[in-house]
């Protein structure tokens, strides 16, 4: 049996928000254990002074002292989970700086999360899974080439994607809207197999990812069932041919957004957010419908417009849409409205998520929304770096899964 991964929990407020049990459950679900780094009372003040951030809350000071003990090597851990209350400014500053500090100095995978009393183990599970994978399965993630004949299925909240790969080439793809999880997966898979001209029985290994990964993975007896954070970062650097060195992967999805700082193809730190539909691909989908154009036309339309000519009063899915409708009634062009919608989504992701990461070039945008050129341009404008959108970027999760699944063929062959 593999040993349990030790996740250091640095926290302020989780016990008093009634979510400690949820955190505990999520950690146990990925076969890991929580540890609290030991610190001496006398060392707390010195640690805070040395670190240099003057926070008033003693529990945040304790977090700092614990982080220092991790960095100093006094507390052996495999990964770190930092959690503080949502809407606390003092805690948000401490959380984000500690994340950077631990990641840079201790080279450990770190995730941070701001919770409310509504946070559940389910919400935390994908993050914990990714944290454990990056800590534990570095060899699997180090794979740079796809070998043999493998398949990957990415079951997203909006669309399901499938990819067939042979000897490091993509030979078949399938893409359907997600309705019933299993049926959609089978449909996308069949399309990809037909395009590749291979039979399901020939597939040597299958990998699944996305929201429906467990259901599909179990039903189809997948060799690899993996959350989308690690799979997507792998897929992104693979497709963009940026497997060595640092990279930043941005994936604006239908239900949540991921921003991942990758080093040599392995996620170092990441943020996963998205309570708000106004910062999602769905907002753009809805805008396209309002404008009476296909989603594929929204990007080029936005490229021709100027977002500055439309006043967006809100980032909200409902009120933001209202602003767009008002602008149209006041004579704004479709191009300007499309541009404003793209800018609104990009700006929200930029303000709420990307601030927590160090954005290092190359920046790679993936997922279905990366095909909306106006959104990519808006992101480029905000980040002031050029953004790479690799070919097959919409199949990112499926490609990552097919690539990583090929690691299991070798394992089986070695066993045989």
């Amino acid at each position, binding site marked *: 049996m593999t040993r349990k991964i030790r996740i250091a929990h640095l926290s*302020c*407020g*989780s*016990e*008093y*928000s*009634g*979510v*400690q*049990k949820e955190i*505990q459950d999520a950690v146990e679900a990925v076969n890991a254990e929580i540890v609290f780094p030991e610190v001496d*009372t006398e060392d*707390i*003040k010195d640690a805070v002074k040395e670190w240099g951030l003057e*926070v*008033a*809350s*003693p*529990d945040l000071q*304790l977090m700092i002292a614990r982080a220092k003990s991790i960095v100093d090597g006094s507390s052996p851990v495999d990964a770190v989970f930092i959690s*503080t*209350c*949502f*809407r*606390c400014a*003092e*805690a948000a500053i401490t959380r984000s700086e500690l994340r950077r500090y631990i990641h840079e100095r201790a080279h450990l995978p770190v995730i941070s999360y701001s*919770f*409310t*009393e*509504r946070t559940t183990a389910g919400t935390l599970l994908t993050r914990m899974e990714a944290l454990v994978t990056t800590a534990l399965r570095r060899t699997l993630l180090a794979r740079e080439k796809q070998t043999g004949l493998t398949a990957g299925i990415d079951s997203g909240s909006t669309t399901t994607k499938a990819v067939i790969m042979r000897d490091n080439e993509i030979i078949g793809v399938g893409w359907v809207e997600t309705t019933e999880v299993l049926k959609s997966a089978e449909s996308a898979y069949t399309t990809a197999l037909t395009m590749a001209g291979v039979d399901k029985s020939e597939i040597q290994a299958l990998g699944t990812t996305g929201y429906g990964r467990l259901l599909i993975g179990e039903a189809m007896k997948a060799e690899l069932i993996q959350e989308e954070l690690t799979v997507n970062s792998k897929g992104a650097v693979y497709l963009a041919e940026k497997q060595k060195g640092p990279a930043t992967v941005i994936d604006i999805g239908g239900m949540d957004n991921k921003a991942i700082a990758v080093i040599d193809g392995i996620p170092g730190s990441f943020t996963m957010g998205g309570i708000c539909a106004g910062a999602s691909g769905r907002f753009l989908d809805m805008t396209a419908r309002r404008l009476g154009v296909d989603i594929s036309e929204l990007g080029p339309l936005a490229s021709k417009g100027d977002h500055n000519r439309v006043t967006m009063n809100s980032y909200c899915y409902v009120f933001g849409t209202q602003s767009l409708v008002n602008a149209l009634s006041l004579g704004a062009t479709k191009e300007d409205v499309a541009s404003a919608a793209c800018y609104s989504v990009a700006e929200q992701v930029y303000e709420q998520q990307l601030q927590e990461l160090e954005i290092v070039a190359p920046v790679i945008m993936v997922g279905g929304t990366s095909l909306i050129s106006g959104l990519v341009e808006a992101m480029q404008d905000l980040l002031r770096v050029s953004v790479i959108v690799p070919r097959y970027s919409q199949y990112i999760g499926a490609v990552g899964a097919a690539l990583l699944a090929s690691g299991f063929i070798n394992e089986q062959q070695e066993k045989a």
Partner: protein
Amino acid sequence: MVKILVYPSNSLILADLVARFGHEPLTMMRVIRRKIKEVGIDSPPINVTPEDPKRGLKYAAVDVPSGVRGRMALLDPLIEEAEAAIIVHEADYSFGCMGCARTNELAKYVIRNKDIPRLELVYPTNDDEAREFVRKIRDFCKSLTSTAEVTA
């Protein structure tokens, strides 16, 4: 005997002195004891559930962090029962229930706005200050006894 809320509410020194001078200290430890004995709730370590931050809405709106509201919910029975209060400042090693600066600010404000006798002082750092500290607490406790007798 008067019920005296002590703050920090987990203070050994305050709980001891108040009891020593004949009154009942209202402390966090008693709240926690009740909490962890609640039957049918399994939310370790201290059985605070998402319901507690909701109860904390009594003191602060939903835009105040859940950790503040959860802690306020724990303090609520102490604040409600308090007939007098002793607040000690410079309690910079208070973690857990007392570990959030915003909660401590709000709790002290709420206590100060209650119409009850109150003593505020700082932690002593030497023998002379400690003598003064103990004397002030004794005198405060004495004054409460006489008031209690008069009202009775």
